[in-house]
């Protein structure tokens, strides 16, 4: 799956429709509010009881941003009041101290990820305090393979902060760039110079970060081939180990900040696809490998290596090499995945704060997976990470007869096969090179909830 898939505008246009990105299956809208803190505690206890309990992956959500980027669809709070960060940190530390004792001490933490919002809304000393509390209540792995990563907004970083983060233990960074074109930056309210961005990448390298990721977005207002082409050249020259090229979806009813964007400035669907094509061609020429969805990596990067040996996985943080970890999320809106359960914290700050202040775990909703969910999650994971499903292996692992169990689902494939997205060979269902940019369309064929929803449209109709 390493080579970058060929670009096919006609095909991409035909399949350009909204749908789940499968960072989890079932997806978050399926979570239920009758799943509470007791259920999460039970899942944690059960997960300790496995013969070899899974290692741990920790995620902390920092919701604050100094200024609003208009394209953003994330859960974030705009403020310049640094004291809010301090108050938030205090509660985070309390949440960590409630969670730590639920997990056996011999379960090593292989991955820590700080996301947002803007994690570097907190100062390096505050981030240090957070890491210290994590290390007090969990056991960090000493393995060189451990990944401690942080999302950074280069506009609010100093090179000395990077040194401090490296000292704290971070070895991976992910930088938001989106586009360097000044007109685009103005239209999305994110003015960020090439110089400050490069200075941060440079500092990460100097201080021993193992990998640097850069996020770009195509489909932003006023974006042009020429401008985006320059952005790509600049970014490729800096040689980030990983690159994500996200598609901008204009859904102002869903994401209020997007109301600030003038829809007349958005590129046409054709132009938008042209931007993706440009990115794919340039990355391909520069030697990047395609990982899946919107992700690319240098061939020597851990993600590309893991994919080559079948050890790639996908969770809420995107693609990862740390497969068999239970994921514990702290902070507002954070999602945990422990054993066969998902659990999510409240998405609004006051509810999360109230739970912490009352000394309760803030679990707001979640889901106890059924056997069918686990099976489909396994299938979709293979599809999203390896681009194919080994039917026999799946039958074996889950005790099913694939053709019978998935009879309805298999009936959905012929149109995709006719379009050359999927092929069935040697007992495998495989995304073709044309289909690899549309993995989620193939995965959606096996999503039980999606098709239930389509069968009962009334439940999802818009309230007018």
């Amino acid at each position, binding site marked *: 799956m390493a080579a970058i898939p060929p670009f096919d505008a006609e095909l991409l246009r035909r399949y350009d429709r909204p749908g789940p990105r499968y960072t989890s299956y079932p997806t978050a809208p399926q979570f239920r509010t009758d799943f509470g803190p007791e259920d999460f505690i039970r899942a944690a206890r059960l997960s300790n009881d*496995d013969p070899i309990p899974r290692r741990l992956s920790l995620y902390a959500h920092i919701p604050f941003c100094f200024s609003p980027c208009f394209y953003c669809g994330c859960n974030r709070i705009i403020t310049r009041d640094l004291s809010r960060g301090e108050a938030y940190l205090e509660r985070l530390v309390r949440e960590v101290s409630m969670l730590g004792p639920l997990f056996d001490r011999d379960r090593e933490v292989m991955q820590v990820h700080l996301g947002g919002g803007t994690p570097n809304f907190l100062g390096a000393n505050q981030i240090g305090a957070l890491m210290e509390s994590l290390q007090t209540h969990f056991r960090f792995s000493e393995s060189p393979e451990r990944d401690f990563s942080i999302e950074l907004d280069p506009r609010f970083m100093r090179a000395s902060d990077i040194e401090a983060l490296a000292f704290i233990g971070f070895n991976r960074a992910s930088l938001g760039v989106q586009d360097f074109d000044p007109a685009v930056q103005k239209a999305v309210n994110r003015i960020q110079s090439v110089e400050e961005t490069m200075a941060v990448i440079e500092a990460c390298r100097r201080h021993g970060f193992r990998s640097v990721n850069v996020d770009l977005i195509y489909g932003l207002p006023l974006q042009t081939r020429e401008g985006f082409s320059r952005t790509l050249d600049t970014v490729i020259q800096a040689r980030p180990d990983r690159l994500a090229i996200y598609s901008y979806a204009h859904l102002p009813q869903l994401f209020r900040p997007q109301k600030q964007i003038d829809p007349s400035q958005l590129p046409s669907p054709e132009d938008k696809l042209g931007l993706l094509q440009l990115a794919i061609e340039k990355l391909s020429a520069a030697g990047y490998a395609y990982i899946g969805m919107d992700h690319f990596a240098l061939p020597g990067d851990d993600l590309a290596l893991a994919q080559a040996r079948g050890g790639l996985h996908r969770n809420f943080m995107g693609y990862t090499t740390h497969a068999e970890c239970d994921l514990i999320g702290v902070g507002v809106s954070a999602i945990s995945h422990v054993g066969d359960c998902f659990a999510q914290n409240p998405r609004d700050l006051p509810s999360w704060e109230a739970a912490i202040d009352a000394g309760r775990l803030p679990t707001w909703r979640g889901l106890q997976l059924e056997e069918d969910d686990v099976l489909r999650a396994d299938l979709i994971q293979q599809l999203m990470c390896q681009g194919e499903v080994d039917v026999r292996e799946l039958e074996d692992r889950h005790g099913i007869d694939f053709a019978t169990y998935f009879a309805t689902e298999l009936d959905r494939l012929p149109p995709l096969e006719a379009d050359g997205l999927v092929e069935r060979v040697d007992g495998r269902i495989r995304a073709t090179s044309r289909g690899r940019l549309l993995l989620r369309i193939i995965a959606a064929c096996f999503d039980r909830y999606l098709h239930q929803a389509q069968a009962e449209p009334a439940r999802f109709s818009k309230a007018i």
Partner: protein
Amino acid sequence: MSIAGKRPRPNPIADDGDELRFCSTCAFSDACLSQGYNKSDLRELHVLVEHVGPFHEGEHIFREGDEFNAIAAVRAGTVKTYVVDAAGQEQVLGFHLPGEIIGLNAISEARYPCNAVALDTVMLCRFSFPKMALLATRMPGLQAQLFKLLSQDIGKAALLAGDYTADERMAAFLVALSRRFAQRGFSATRLHLTMTRTDIANYLRLAPETVSRVLRRLQEEGLVKVERRELEISDLPRLEALARVVLRN
């Protein structure tokens, strides 16, 4: 969603016994099948049997000190027997799989000397012990089977008392489980572990961390593959070699 296409897990209740035959997994099946009893004898034996359950995960079947009046054969699920020592620590005595008997160690005192708890959904066959003892005086085959079960029960407890390494204990535990499953017609190499690692640790007199460390090592050496509660024995001969010092065969 379709339930069609789901392969059934091996289920001992699927070949339930009838008036003349015990379930094929039952510890007493030998006692009647091969001994040429006549119909009335078998009927008498079967009258003693009472199907009970289901017991759900965590539910107790009997507790230490309860009056003993019946032994029971496990038809489905796993039963853990344990005592609580003076320090309040749980000591696991054993795990009882389909076809195996619980309550044998209660015969001498007329009270159960331990607790028995269901680790998953458990179905039992209860045999009234006074009636069975009486019948055994008339049915030599039944008596022989009872003695055999008793001596097996004593032998099992002695196995792990020796001075063995953690690796040897774990290997012996897995090999013994594999053989017991195989004997009842289940897979010898694919085991679903219904017991927690704390239970396994307690039974093997190891720390829970040691259980995981040893299993991880066995996995790295290619002897087993562990995914959550599913354990596959990839190299039974090597695992048996490691277990030999404990199992002696």
